[in-house]
Each structure stands twice: as C-alpha cells, then as structure tokens.
C-alpha cells in the first residue's frame, strides 16, 4: 500500500500539481486537499505548495493560515504528522506559528528566479533523511518575499538545535538572515523551504533531480514510524 501525501490547493496556489507529481515520482500516492475543507482524507503527510495564496494579500500566507484546512493541518502537525511547506507554504507555516520567524520582501526588491545551490545541513528531519548532512544540491528558487527574518535569539536557537535544514551557497538571493533557505520545528516533522524541490524531480524539466530525496525521505520516515 502506498503512503498518502496530501497536497493542499489554496486560491492562488501554483505548484500543487508539481508537488503532487513529485510525490508520485517518489513512490507515494498524491491526494488533493482543498483549502475550504478541514477533512485531510486520511493522509499520512501534507505538502503546502508554492504560489500566491489569496493573492499574497495582507502578508504572504497570512490569510491562508485561517483557511479551514489549516486547522486540521496544525492539529496533526503538532501531533507529529510530517508537513512540508515550500515557498508560499513556508510563509504559511510561519504565519501559522508551526515554524518561527517570518519571510519578508527580498532585500534587492527583485523577484528572484534561478537555479540555486544549497547545502543540506539537517539529515534527520522527516523531509531530509535521504540526504547526507553537508550534501550540496541545486534546485530552482523563485520568490519575491523569501528573506528569512527572526530575532537573534531564535536564530541562535535554530543553529544550536540543528534546525537549519538548508542554507544558500554562492549567493544569498533574498537577504535571508544567516543564509537560511529552510528550517524545521523541534520535532523535525515540520519543514519550511523557500526553494522548490518539486521542480527538480525529472531531468527533462528540472536543472537536476536533487529534489527527489525530500519526497522519498518522508515516505521512508512514515514506513519506519
């Protein structure tokens, strides 16, 4: 029986189909979830995809946080269900307080779209266990509000607890504090990532297939759980 990974579609989500495809390529069953429905359809994990939920009105992710589906996602995430937020999904996780800090306007004010080199620094989270700590990967990055900001104490805690999941290499595309590209919660089941692994799962369309391990990681973590 394949494991069920839900992908939430909000009004304005863009990358829900790519995320579902990445789940299938990794060997899981992708299940579509709707923002207005608090039923998670018995999924084992959830991906909050990239895009511009609710047009990024108010603040990125600020309105999506109050969507009915998020009540269930927050409840299950706090109980240990793996959740991956990519780009806008990362913003939603921060607004939902499942992850600390917030994503702000790129310091350059430019929307950045590039193949980005990253270093995976945490190989124990639910979504990165198929990587080796220190492994370098290249996956697409595309955001206008990707600058990770938190107070110094929070940043120190994230570093000390090994919760910086990925860091930008070669250049910092958005002014993120300490070059942070992704973080996880204390338990390691909730991961937020600004770059897009779901766009790097097939050599035909991606710069690499370096994104696949994020999705195989969660399937393995669910089997061993």
């Amino acid at each position, binding site marked *: 029986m394949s494991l069920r990974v839900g992908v939430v579609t909000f009004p304005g989500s863009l990358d829900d189909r790519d995320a579902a495809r990445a789940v299938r390529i990794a060997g899981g069953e992708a299940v579509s979830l709707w923002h207005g429905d608090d039923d998670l359809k018995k999924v084992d994990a959830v991906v909050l995809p990239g895009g511009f939920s609710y047009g990024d009105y*108010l*603040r990125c992710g*600020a309105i999506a946080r*109050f969507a009915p589906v998020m009540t269930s996602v927050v409840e299950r995430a706090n109980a240990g269900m793996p959740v991956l937020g990519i780009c806008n999904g990362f913003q939603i996780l*921060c*607004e939902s307080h499942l992850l*600390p*800090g*917030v994503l*702000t*306007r*790129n*310091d*350059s*004010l430019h929307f950045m779209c590039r193949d980005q080199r990253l270093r995976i620094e945490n190989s124990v989270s639910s979504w990165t266990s198929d990587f080796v700590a220190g492994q370098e990967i290249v996956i697409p990055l595309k955001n206008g509000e990707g*600058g990770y*900001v*938190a*107070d110094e104490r929070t940043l120190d805690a994230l570093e000390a607890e090994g919760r910086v999941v990925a860091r930008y290499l070669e250049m910092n595309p958005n*002014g993120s504090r300490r070059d942070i590209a992704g973080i996880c919660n204390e338990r390691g089941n909730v991961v937020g990532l600004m770059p897009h692994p779901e766009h790097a799962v097939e050599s035909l369309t991606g710069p690499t297939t370096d994104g696949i391990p994020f999705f195989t990681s969660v399937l393995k973590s669910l089997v061993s759980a």
Partner: protein
Amino acid sequence: MARVVVDVMLKPEILDPQGRAVAGSLRRLGLTGVTDVRQGKQFIIDLDGVVEGARLELIETLASELLSNPVIEDYKLQVIEDPA
C-alpha cells in the same frame, strides 16, 4: 457607528526595502534631506454599534493576529466613536 483605525508598521529593527526604494525615488525627484522612509499599512474598519468590552478585546486580538505579524510588525489602534 464607530471607526477603528489600525496602523501597522515594521518594527524599527526590521529592514524595510520598500521604504528604502521610496526614499531613493524621493531623492531622485528632487527632495533634499531625506534621511529615511518607512512604509506601513493603515486599516480603516467601520462598524455598527459601539466598540467596547469584549468586542474591543476581539479587535485587539485580530489586530495582533491577523492585521499584523508581531514577529516583524507593531500596530497602533485608535477607536473613533461617531466618525463624521
């Protein structure tokens, strides 16, 4: 009838790239002596009835949980009863 005005500003220590870009434009357009620009948001909420007690508390909560993000923003809330 009442009006609640909520002003939301980035905290002083948070970089405001939009404000910085606006400052650059002001200088280019001939305004001298610009030392800093900070950009914020203003919400004007018109309501029936009076704003007090539990209703005011709810508005305070929503100002801090929905209208602003306390990680990076401060808000100021002003209640105007019977706005003209």
